């Protein structure tokens, strides 16, 4: 008797729970559908399955069985192939050698790609690219863009300099939405940044006639059509970032004239690198600061939420000279300030910083050097090095949004390494995750 009553209660409970769940999900879907016309009720099931899948199989292989394939509106065009899984993206990175891509012939083209990575450091999507790519820029806010079916957040994939193209992908699926060709007499120089409202993309460019630097602006709401151009006030603009106040563009003018075909540097003796601040609306030059040595090429930047610019330098001078390679600057200050290294050992980085990533919350900076085979973490409060980590061929660096670590570093041997910092002990801990691909120069967080 007791057993029967319990079974009835259990059945009742199950029925009521299912009805309640269905009702609540239905209500959520009703409102969700209004902002996303393509939303489907089955998304809840696939989303849940994705979470379960990643929880029980954190090292799930990104293969054809689990990945979706993108439709082919024009099969004649074979520039991109995309595969994706329904999971949220935490980082995006360029890839110099996709898993399948060790070919025996000389055609390297399909080796290149872009990947979306989840917070477990597993691949969410991968899209092949027709050429090697450099920076991947994440749109700060989603906008309804012309030609898109729904609100999508974009990632912009810049070709490696000098390049004639950049591509706009959907952040969630990796689909290529737009392919933008450089204007005549212009080449893209590997980096870009969005305005804070996500509506304008600024791109570092090169005038191929007189080799002066330019900053092109592109309308994200209108298919990334070029809407204007301002002078970069320097040669060889590389990375550029937006000031947190949203009014200034900050440009790393590397100073190097590069021959297109050979990538040979043409002016190493006379180069004049500078950190340049421009009014993003008018193009007015607001400030320009030069480093202590004219061969300290300012190449890579990040910005602290307090407005301090983090600068990664690549030194182009004589090998034996020892000069600071990680600098900071705040608008209004006269000079670039170096961080400090024990025994002034800047040679640790072999004259080459590939990426800088700042953790504003904890006042920390991570820099990478693939040639030196090290990633290093600095305490921005003391300006001192906390620790360096041996990571051969590491280049990409980004912050980690959750509390699991502070930074993530990618390398050419397929490792995604998280770096956690214990400020009280001034030490770091690392955790490696291996992927079957060679990550390219830059890794960006999708916050």
């Amino acid at each position, binding site marked *: 008797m007791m057993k029967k009553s319990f079974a009835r209660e259990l059945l009742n409970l199950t029925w009521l729970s299912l009805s309640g769940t269905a009702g609540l999900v239905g209500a959520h879907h009703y409102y969700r559908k209004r902002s996303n016309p393509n939303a489907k009720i089955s998304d809840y099931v696939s989303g849940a399955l994705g979470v379960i899948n990643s929880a029980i199989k954190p090292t799930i292989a990104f293969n054809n069985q689990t990945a979706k394939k993108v439709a082919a509106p024009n099969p004649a065009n074979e520039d991109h192939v995309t595969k994706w899984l329904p999971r949220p993206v935490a980082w995006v990175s360029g890839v110099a050698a996709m898993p399948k891509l060790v*070919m025996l012939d000389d055609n390297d083209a399909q080796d290149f790609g872009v990947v979306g990575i989840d917070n477990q450091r597993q691949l969410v999507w991968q899209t092949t690219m027709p050429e090697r790519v450099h920076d991947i820029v994440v749109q700060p806010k989603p906008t309804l863009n012309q030609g898109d079916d729904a609100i999508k957040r974009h990632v912009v994939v810049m070709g490696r300099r000098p390049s004639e193209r950049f591509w706009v992908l959907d952040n969630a699926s990796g689909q290529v*939405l737009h392919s933008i060709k450089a204007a005549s007499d212009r080449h893209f120089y590997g980096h870009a940044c969005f305005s804070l409202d996500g509506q304008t993309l600024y791109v570092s460019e090169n005038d191929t006639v007189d080799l002066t630097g330019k900053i092109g602006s592109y309308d994200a709401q209108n298919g990334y059509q070029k809407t204007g151009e301002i002078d970069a006030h320097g040669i060889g603009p590389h990375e550029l970032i937006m000031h947190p106040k949203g009014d200034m563009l900050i440009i790393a003018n590397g100073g190097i004239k590069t021959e297109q075909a050979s990538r040979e540097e043409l002016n190493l003796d006379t180069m004049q690198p500078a950190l340049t601040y421009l009014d993003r609306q008018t193009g007015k030059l607001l400030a320009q600061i030069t480093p202590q040595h004219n061969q300290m090429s300012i190449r890579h930047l990040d910005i602290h939420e307090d407005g301090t610019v983090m600068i990664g330098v690549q030194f182009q001078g004589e090998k034996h000279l020892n000069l600071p390679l990680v600098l900071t600057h705040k608008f209004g200050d006269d000079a670039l300030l170096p961080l400090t290294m024990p025994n002034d050992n800047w040679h640790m980085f072999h004259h080459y910083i590939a990426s800088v990533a700042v953790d504003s919350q904890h006042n920390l900076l991570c820099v990478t050097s693939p040639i030196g085979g090290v990633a290093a973490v600095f305490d921005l409060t003391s300006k001192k090095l906390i620790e360096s980590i041996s990571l051969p061929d*590491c280049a990409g660096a980004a912050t980690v949004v959750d509390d699991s670590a502070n930074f993530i570093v990618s390398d050419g041997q397929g490792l995604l390494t998280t770096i956690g910092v214990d400020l009280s002990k001034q030490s770091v801990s690392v955790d490696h995750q291996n992927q079957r691909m060679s990550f390219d120069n830059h890794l960006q967080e999708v916050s």
Partner: protein
Amino acid sequence: MKKTHALAMAISALSAGLLVSCVKPNDNQAADSEQQKVSDNKAETQKATATADTEAVKITPVELSADTKKTYLTHVADDIVIPAYAKSAEQSLRLHDLTKTHCGSAPVTGDKLDELRAAWLELAKSWSAAEMINFGPATKSMSNLYINYYPDERGLVHQGVSDLIRANPNLTPEQLADESAVVQGVPGLEEALFANDRLDSGECAYVMSASSALNQRLTAIEKNWQENKTTLLAIDNVDNNQGLNKWFNSLLAMIETMKSSAIEQPLGLSGKAKGHLPAATAKQSREIVSAKLAVLNQVLTDPVFTAMLGTKGESEVGNKLSTALADTTTLLAQLPEDIGTADKANQQKLLEDLTTITRVIKRELMPTLGVRVGFNSTDGD
């Protein structure tokens, strides 16, 4: 309210919350693949073909057990790396001792100078072989510049050494230790021994100090490897192939750097000439290139390695490599000591042969071993 109803409400809220949170991050995501449209006609379209991980790969990767990897990496450390540094240290000591003997009656000229030059060449060849290891203590913080400042595109070594000797006619190893990398190591010694036909007392003091300082560096590197080989080659952690990646990428970097910096650029084989041949003052570039090729031959044909590639040491990629290496060695032997004086056709052929070796290593050998080809370290961007 009945307990069952309250519990059902709680479960409903919880499960609905879970489902909602699971789908939320995907709201930015594109619609299902079959319904997807890329409406912008400027957009590149996408191909729907599957991209299997192994598709189009025409090689057969070998399965390497953890024990095999450990055994091989231990062999690399004990039988290749450490002896390479030991030999360099030994040769630097030999040059030092010989200089000490001959400089007792400075100036040194004629046969005695030739003996010192021959000792230098053995040192340069042994370091050339040891340079294949482009990680670890020898390259940490660019300390290898103190052993081989190459290429010296602005002629800093020539000027630096002569200025140093003039300013310090009784130079000691301690004084030299504080000097720039430009005036130290193998190129500095080459400058002192080959730039003139005699070695006076100041040059003698420099050669003794520089060879002594070099010996200390090389001995320290060898000791460091002996003490830290497990860490340096990740022998105790072979799961992610870190040690194999390091080792084979190092070999690849060595041959690629030699190809571009020591042959292609100085000989101007693909544009304007840049830099200089190795051992240019001594006019012994062939010996330096040969030494590098010899070590590559040693590494890639050694029985422990070939056993990894296939049963009974037989493998297509192994055979291809040994043939390419033999062809290049034969070609090199036919060239003059100063490769710069060889005819252009042979210079070009040498470059092509080295390109073939590079390609086989990069595209066949490394994938066969499951080793990833690094790229950022040679990126320059």
